[in-house]
């Protein structure tokens, strides 16, 4: 079998469930060791001091190491196999970036260290800003937003503040495609806007005719990712941009799909005024099981003074913090997820111009290839050529054999692949969304495609027992109702439930 493909990545050693660390606890065991108190001990009386000890587990260091290592063994990861997860850009995370982030000169610096004592950190953010604005076609950036959703909110608060300063107070509507990520409408609502949805046409693109009817004096802006969540390039983006700008609205670029266009084209040139980037997607920082991310926001020159501050400035080879004049305010306690930003710069330095110029092209090449080979067993949702990801659908299989997107995803788990994104975008029935990224080999893509055709035949034969997939893993499909209904969210809750029932 070729690299990274079939079943080479089943990570789940040991069929038995791992006890909780609390179940492993025995009174008197300990892992910690501290130096002896080296100042004279005094009796300190204080109203807030308690006498009882905190009820934490008591384990030896070896117990601790074994427990968390065993948990690690029960998890899939980029280092173990292929995540064809649409809209998530699960590419390879270079080890080198982790080493850079572990340098004590970066990782052990207190965030309140004055700027003249932390010039190296400011320099990193300054250089990374230059990379980001060149790649996205913008002018200035802030690294405050710790994740993509925070970047979105930042962008929307910038729009709000800008419009208020221009006395355009009637602008209350943010237009969002019906195919958008859930964070888009959630962020718009948080910023105090009304959400107006624009439909997707049969080709999978924003319905520009409908957009024209939705745009008016109340339009504050449009949130869009390009390529869109169907993996298609919005070919009429220049027209869309003209429509929004004609009523003094602003264009917000959701960086979720930036990987498709790095080195190919730039949101700034398309007319976007604000862009957030997901460094944990496009720039290869590890996803950490769900975070940390980093969602820096870049803007055109006329919006610089609205950025969450402080931002980095350089003069006479010295770096300093600059507080933008009409700043929307901080989005994070300090400067966002600095060590994530640092990892992204490490990745970009290794790639350099050559690597960055090729980035989008190879991401699209891989997706186009995978779409082509998978389409032999699964129909695609749209006829147009895809960018870095594509949407397939099993709606016909659902009709003929009751096979749902969910079942295909679960069956893939048995064979060493992560599931693609399913039921997204919401507008495609029984959607399976694939994003291979540029770091997967052609062999792995062939393996996935072959495995999918095998799975479909298998599911057709066994379609009376679809909910038994996955079958080869230590655990099967969890009952999702129990914790939602009984709130078994803390150790002991479940046992308590069993006793009371």
């Amino acid at each position, binding site marked *: 079998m070729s690299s990274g493909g079939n079943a080479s990545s089943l990570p789940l050693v040991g069929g038995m469930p791992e006890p909780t660390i609390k179940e492993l606890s025995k009174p008197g065991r300990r892992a910690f060791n501290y130096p002896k108190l080296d100042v004279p001990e005094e009796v300190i009386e204080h109203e807030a001091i308690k006498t009882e000890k905190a009820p934490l587990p008591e384990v030896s260091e070896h117990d601790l190491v074994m427990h968390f290592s065993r948990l*690690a063994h029960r998890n899939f990861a980029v280092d173990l196999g292929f995540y064809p997860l649409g809209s998530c850009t699960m590419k390879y995370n270079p080890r080198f970036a982790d080493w850079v982030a572990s340098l004590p000169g970066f990782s052990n610096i207190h*965030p309140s260290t004055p700027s003249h004592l932390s010039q190296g950190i400011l320099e990193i953010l300054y250089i990374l800003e230059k990379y980001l604005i060149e790649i996205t076609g913008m002018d200035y950036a802030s690294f405050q937003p710790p994740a993509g959703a925070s970047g979105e909110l930042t962008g929307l608060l910038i729009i709000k503040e800008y419009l208020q300063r221009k006395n355009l107070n009637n602008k209350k509507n943010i237009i969002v495609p019906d195919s958008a990520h859930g964070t888009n409408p959630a962020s718009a609502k948080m910023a105090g806007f009304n959400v107006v949805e624009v439909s997707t046409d049969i080709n999978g693109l924003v319905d520009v005719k409908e957009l024209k009817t939705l745009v008016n004096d109340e339009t504050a802006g449009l949130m869009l990712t390009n390529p869109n969540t169907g993996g298609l390039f919005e070919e009429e983006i220049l027209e869309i941009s003209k429509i929004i700008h004609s009523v003094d609205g602003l264009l917000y670029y959701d960086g979720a799909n930036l990987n498709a266009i790095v080195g190919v084209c730039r949101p700034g040139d398309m007319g976007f005024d604000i862009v957030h980037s997901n460094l944990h997607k496009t720039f290869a920082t590890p996803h950490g099981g769900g975070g940390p991310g980093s969602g820096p926001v870049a803007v055109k020159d006329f919006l610089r003074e609205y950025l969450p501050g402080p931002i980095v400035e350089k003069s006479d080879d010295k770096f300093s913090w600059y507080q933008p004049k009409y700043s929307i305010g901080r989005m994070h306690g300090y400067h966002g997820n600095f060590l994530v930003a640092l990892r992204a710069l490490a990745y970009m330095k290794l790639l350099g111009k050559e690597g960055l110029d090729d980035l989008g092209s190879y991401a699209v090449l891989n997706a186009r290839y995978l779409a082509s080979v998978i389409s032999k067993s699964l129909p695609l949702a749209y006829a147009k050529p895809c960018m870095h990801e594509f949407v397939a659908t099993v709606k016909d299989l659902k009709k003929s054999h009751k096979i749902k997107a969910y079942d295909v995803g679960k069956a893939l788990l048995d064979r060493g692949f992560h599931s693609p994104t399913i039921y997204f975008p919401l507008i495609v029935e029984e959607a399976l969304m694939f994003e291979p990224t540029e770091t997967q080999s052609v062999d792995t893509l062939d393996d996935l495609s072959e495995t999918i055709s095998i799975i479909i035949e298998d599911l057709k034969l066994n379609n009376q027992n679809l909910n038994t997939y996955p079958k080869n893993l230590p655990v099967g499909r969890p009952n999702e109702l129990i914790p939602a209904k009984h709130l078994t969210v803390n150790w002991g809750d479940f046992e308590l439930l069993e006793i009371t029932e």
Partner: protein
Amino acid sequence: MFVPHSDIDLKKVFNELSINSLSELFSHLPKELILENGVNLPDSISELEAIEYFESISKKNKENLICFAGGGHYDVYLPHTVKTLTMRPEFMTSYTPYQAEISQGVLQALFEFQSLVCDLTEMELANASLYDGATSIAEAISVAINKTKRDEVVISSGFHPNSKEVVNTLIDNEKFKIKYIDLIDYKFPKDYKFKDTDAAFVVSYPHFEGTAEDLTELVTKAKSKGIVTICYVDPTLLGILKTPGNMGFDIVVAEGQSIGTPLSFGGPTVGWFATKKEFARLVPGRIIGESRDSNNIKTYVMTLRAREQDIRREKASSNICTNQTLNAIGSAIHLCWLGPEGIYTMGFQAMQKANYMKNKLIEENIEVLNKDTSIREFLIKTEKDVDIVIDKMADDGYLAGIKYSNNQILIAVTEKRTKDEIDRYVNTLKKVLDE
């Protein structure tokens, strides 16, 4: 770089797609958008060259300053065991655990994190993390507003100015009134009169200034008016201080950096959020629950998903998606390394050493503003401009503290500081002030 395609691979792919060049992939894009010459950025460098590049920039930071700065981020000892376990690639390079069957490791680690946070704070339900302490305060206020449908927030002024700014950014101050209440002698005024229109009572424990007090009476008073009570706590002191749950708080939030994460210039760290089960459906962010699979085997799974943005869209309890999972796992591992005795020792030593330092400063006629009520962090008064003092102290190898005002420094002492470091700090400060 990191693209595995050989010439043979490329030929195969080009054949399949009937193309001859990469640029043909983009023939359907508007021509004027295509970057003819790519990006204008420096050429790639090798890993070996990059080592030199990044090391030299890192050295432009003043390294190895002995850290007496706190304000939520503390220079505590972070054991190698915790660092290396947290950095395991299965944790580090995995995606959000939507596919429970192949994500039991991350799910169980997060479930244990939630449970440990609940045990430590005496609460019932914790989420799987928020961005940091400051954003967690704002999220907690949103919960209180949603729960009470009221629009005024009572918040202690004893918070880091950055945290106040974050609250100001994230809570819409056209709709909601944020009322900062001044501390008296570094304590929240005991006779404060809450109103029936207040949504939340938000207080830091200890206050930013370092003073801690038993807040039980204030919490009881606020709750009798139907107000949601929110405690922002320093988690490293929970081995010695009365818990927020014990004092009756509804919601506990924390900056979790000091449990499991290096200082990191403030990010990535982790926000903790714990509450009572009655608030379950208003909680922001991911929550992991325990369940069983079809063979009745223990299985963990993300739960109460109907609150979240990918399902609820504009009606979600928060827009948070990507969170700080890896740092939360770090917190869990560090808490287990500590155990009951370790977390006690961590707090106890910090308090003893702070007490020693306060006495030492007073011996040298340096004024400590909240000597008796503070725990491990306290304010001193300086006759000289604080910026100058901090600069001079840095020349001698100290990060002296956080500038509180032009003539006040906030000093934090952790269990990691030694008697020798404290003695030298006090002597150096004396010298700087006398100059």
